């Protein structure tokens, strides 16, 4: 008796086979994914660069956060939805790919970094940038980590595209 993994079962669902078999569906969803992820990465970087004090100094950190957070969440929801659909069509192949697993792990780390920033480091953010109030070092490091993670995450994603047949 051969054991069928949950990932193979996901692939075999009507949704999975439809996306895998329709010629134009996969690249169409991929396109939505790219537009969404490019927005996520770029807008997060605007916030990170502001935290680091490298650019956008005329704008307060709090105002930059108000501007960027809703855009990031909207685009992230779209990236998650499109990414989920791509995943369903080749679930077992992706789960066997170490670069895909790295990508998921690093995204989890980025989410954790962001959650800690909002729960802990962002206290007193309204004052940051006012005379006598610097951006705390912990918040700057959090921005730097975010910037680095969001560069490595798309790299892992791109490598997945080149190694799909290698591991499975």
């Amino acid at each position, binding site marked *: 008796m051969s054991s069928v993994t949950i990932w193979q079962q996901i692939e075999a669902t009507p949704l999975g086979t439809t996306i895998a078999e329709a010629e134009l569906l996969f690249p169409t969803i991929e396109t939505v994914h790219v537009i969404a992820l490019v927005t996520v990465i770029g*807008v997060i970087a605007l916030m990170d660069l502001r935290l680091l004090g490298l*650019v956008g100094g*005329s704008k307060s950190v709090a105002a930059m956060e*108000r501007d960027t957070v809703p855009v990031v969440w909207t685009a992230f929801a779209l990236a998650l939805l499109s990414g989920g659909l791509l995943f369903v069509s080749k679930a077992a192949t992706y789960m066997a790919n170490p670069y895909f697993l790295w990508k998921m792990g690093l995204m989890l780390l980025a989410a954790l970094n962001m959650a800690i920033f909002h729960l802990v480091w962002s206290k007193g953010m309204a004052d940051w940038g006012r005379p006598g109030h610097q951006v705390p070092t912990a918040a700057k490091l959090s921005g730097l980590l975010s910037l680095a993670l969001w560069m490595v995450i798309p790299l892992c994603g791109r490598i997945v595209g080149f190694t799909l047949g290698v591991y499975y």
Partner: protein
Amino acid sequence: MEWLFDLTEKLRGTQLVEFSLWVSDWPLAIWLQSHFLAIPGFQTLHIIAIAALFSTVLMLNLKIWGLTGGDQSLEAAYRRYRPWTWGALSALVLTGIVLLISEPVRNMVNSIFWMKMVLLAVAIAGTFAFHRSVRGQLATWEASPAGHATLRSGAIAVTLLWCAVITGGRWIAYAPV
């Protein structure tokens, strides 16, 4: 999709075939082809460059639509984002040239690649014209952000143009051959 086949077929009859084969013998092309991380690495830099371009275009356009940037003037938003839009464009073109050299035949003898190049030219011209129009309306905008229909529609048009360029980029890999 028949006309895409026909366009690729026409490209096969041009000097581009010989030219792209010649480029694929360049030392840089051979280096890129023989290092596993080189092509995904430059693709990632290309993606980061379009991320910087697209997000700064989007943020300026959201400001024009009154959805963000309530704390500052249009001029401040324009000055904040404009240099990044054009700086990212140069990074985009540079990494794009490297990617073109990495797979010359796949790109140059490809109908979708050339459609992307046309879209890119239109998007650059459109963004340039849009920025000029923003500059021209900064004073009247501060007096009252109402009206300014050309800016509002221009903002949407520019965003859609860059989405079209991104779409072209993704579909190069799916060109009918």
